[in-house]
């Protein structure tokens, strides 16, 4: 028979100060950890949504992103030769979307407008909605006759002045007001951080005669690699990538940032392991006679080892729950939005950091590992205690 769970639970409260201090150490580490996992998973979610293999982005040769790519209309027209493009079943139009990308600097909401971020403004035509299939409108689509735009959900949450009915100044001299008539979501894909308007209207406002990029959807059977080769070839002479490859390259800088954060948290988590070990050693040392007594009445060394590990996992779980709660409170009170530059887009990708059940589960898993590691050596020592000499101790 194993030691009763209630025995371990109640043991935690015999040394209130020590238990509390240990919980706080673990809670602090877990709080920071769950924030970071929340950020990393927001990034991953965003990128995994934007990873359709049948969707290609075409840029000018030498360009690294839509922001620094310029495709003259005659170059763009050569894309019509591509046989692998899918067609709209009703209108029979090719699913090839010319797009233009510019930036507008907008104040961040989270610091009250003290700093601004560069938000991507994308000029599109109706075809874009058939190519970017995950776009879901909340409200109206922009009109082609009037200066109107729609705003991605993440951008509206991160930057000021993007609510329905408000106007935003766009154009090379920022002198053309565009009214915001709708919001859109895209399952959390990076385009949720953008503002969309009618391509000819925006090209006119920015004095542009060239497109930035073309997005296209391949027909179901088409091989993306062949299409990419074809676009590179002498007939078209442009550069194409699948959507997944494109966004992955753009997020390289963000991943480096996360790497730094991971290093910091790992070191702190290790410190928590040592702190737990310390507490557990003290627990074992303070209960030498008690353990010897348990051995005398028939509990095996292995049961005692398991018992102490369980006790430590309890302790760390308490810390883990405290940490998750602290993280949730932080996100609620201080704010949960974060935005970062893509590697070369010169525009921000906005994230909404959420404490999802998955994140909490990851944090608690970490905590269980930390608790078990910290307790193993002290528990092992407890299980190997010489019964007779321990009973004799003062």
């Amino acid at each position, binding site marked *: 028979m194993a030691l009763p769970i209630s025995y371990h639970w109640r043991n935690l409260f015999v*040394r209130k*100060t*020590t238990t509390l*201090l*240990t919980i*706080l*150490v673990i809670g*602090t*580490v877990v709080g920071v950890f769950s924030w970071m996992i929340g950020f990393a998973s927001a990034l991953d979610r965003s990128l995994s949504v934007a990873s359709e293999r049948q969707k290609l982005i075409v840029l*000018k*040769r*030498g*360009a*690294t992103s839509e*922001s*620094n*790519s310029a495709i003259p209309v005659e170059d763009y027209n050569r894309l019509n030769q591509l046989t692998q493009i899918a067609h709209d079943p009703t209108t029979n139009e090719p699913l090839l979307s010319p797009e233009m990308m*510019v*930036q*507008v*600097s907008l104040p*961040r909401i989270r610091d009250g407008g003290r*700093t*601004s*971020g*560069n938000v991507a403004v994308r000029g599109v035509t109706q075809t874009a909605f058939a190519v970017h299939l995950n776009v879901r409108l909340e409200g109206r689509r922009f009109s082609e006759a009037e200066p109107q735009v729609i705003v991605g959900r993440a951008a509206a949450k991160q930057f000021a002045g993007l609510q329905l009915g408000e106007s935003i100044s766009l154009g*090379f*001299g*920022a002198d053309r007001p565009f009214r915001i008539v709708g919001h859109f979501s895209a399952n959390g894909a990076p385009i949720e951080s953008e503002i969309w308007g009618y391509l000819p209207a925006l090209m006119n406002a920015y004095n542009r005669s060239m497109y930035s990029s073309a997005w296209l959807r391949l027909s179901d059977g088409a091989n993306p690699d062949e299409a990419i080769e074809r676009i590179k070839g002498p007939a078209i002479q442009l550069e194409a990538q699948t959507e997944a490859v494109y966004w992955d*390259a753009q997020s*390289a*800088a963000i991943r*480096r*940032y996360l*790497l*730094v*954060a991971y290093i*910091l948290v790992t*070191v*702190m988590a*290790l*410190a*928590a392991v*040592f*702190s737990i*070990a*310390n*507490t557990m*050693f*003290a627990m074992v*040392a*303070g209960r030498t006679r008690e353990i010897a007594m348990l051995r005398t009445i028939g509990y095996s060394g292995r049961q005692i080892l398991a018992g102490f590990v369980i006790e430590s996992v309890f302790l760390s779980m308490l810390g883990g729950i405290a940490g998750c709660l602290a993280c949730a409170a932080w996100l609620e009170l201080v704010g949960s939005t*974060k*935005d*970062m*530059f893509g*590697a*070369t887009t*010169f525009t921000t990708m906005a994230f909404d950091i959420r404490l999802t059940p998955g994140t909490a589960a990851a944090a608690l898993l970490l905590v269980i590992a930390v608790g078990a590691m910290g307790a193993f050596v002290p528990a092992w020592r407890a299980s190997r205690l010489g019964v007779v000499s321990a009973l004799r101790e*003062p």
Partner: protein
Amino acid sequence: MTLTYVLMQNLKRNPLRTALTIVAFALPMAVFVAAISFVMLLARISADNERELRLGVHHRITLTNSLPDGMRRKIEALDPKGERLLAVCGMRWFGGRVPGTQNTLTSLAADADTFPIVYSDVDMTDEEIATWNRDRTAAVTGKGPAEQYGWKLGDRIELESSVPPYMSLEFRIVKIIDRAERANFFYFRRDYLNEARERIGQPDPRCNIFWIKCKTAEGLRTLQAEIDATFANTPDATKSEDENAFAANFTQASGDIPGLMQVAAIVVVVIIALVAGNTMMLSLRERMRELAVFKAIGFQRGRVFRIVLAESVLLALLGALVGVIPTSIGLALFPLKMLRMGPIGQLDVSPIAVLVSMVIALLVGIAAGLWPAYQAQRLNTVDALRRVA
């Protein structure tokens, strides 16, 4: 029986706990000293920038809207006698990368005549300036790319631009900048870029930003207002910012690393305070009877207090040393260059950062020891002696 003797005996009593505490203390301290070094590096860069008195003028809407290069003359005309401004240097974004790589360098084409004046902190010698003036392909690079690609002085290198018209240009390295804040920059002559563009029939001598070297902070402020007023309500309306304000636009967008480091430093202090406090409570509990014996044989309350407090401080300082020294050596031997995150690659631990860390450790040691020490001091001798451990 001296205080030192008692302290050493106490630490040796439970060597396992001492070791665990020191390690649990040392790991966060290692993070702390790196974080604080980074924050100090940024503070130094920011102070340097302020001393350099540079004013950046770019298009009001975004940096990617270019400005006509004739604007340089107009800016210079605002102060014809040169009382406030020393020189104006127009710059054009090139966004070059080494062929076959993905990493875009912060590469800019700069006015050849004024670059050495406006960027006097690049520390070009007279000889280097002469080479820069003589050779149209001359380029000045930060340490980052130089180390990454193994460039040496005099090397001929090629960069491919990532902005229209996506030209490939050849440069000769005439200077490698030895400053952390310019680690990832690459400058070359703007007339060279313009000529190359003319040759392919796409001339466009515009600039993304003009950097103005000012003579006084006062002059910088008045010029800032004057320039923006001069170009207001034209298609080329400007926004002028000093170098720190300009850099702040990018700090937030790159994830606010300084903010992250500050949070890390605060979290670390909280953790080590808890760890130290925990250990002291544990050792106090274990040693209740012993302290009672001390009191019984005539140790004064103050002395008992000092014994417990000194142990906490000693533990904290030992932990800090074990964390700080390997980090300092580690960062000196293996800098974080592969992260390619601006100044973070040039991070090293300064003696002041070590000093700050030790002071923090000392304070934490005192704070963590105060309560247990107080408990020990007011221990009721008779009760404690009677208590079974």
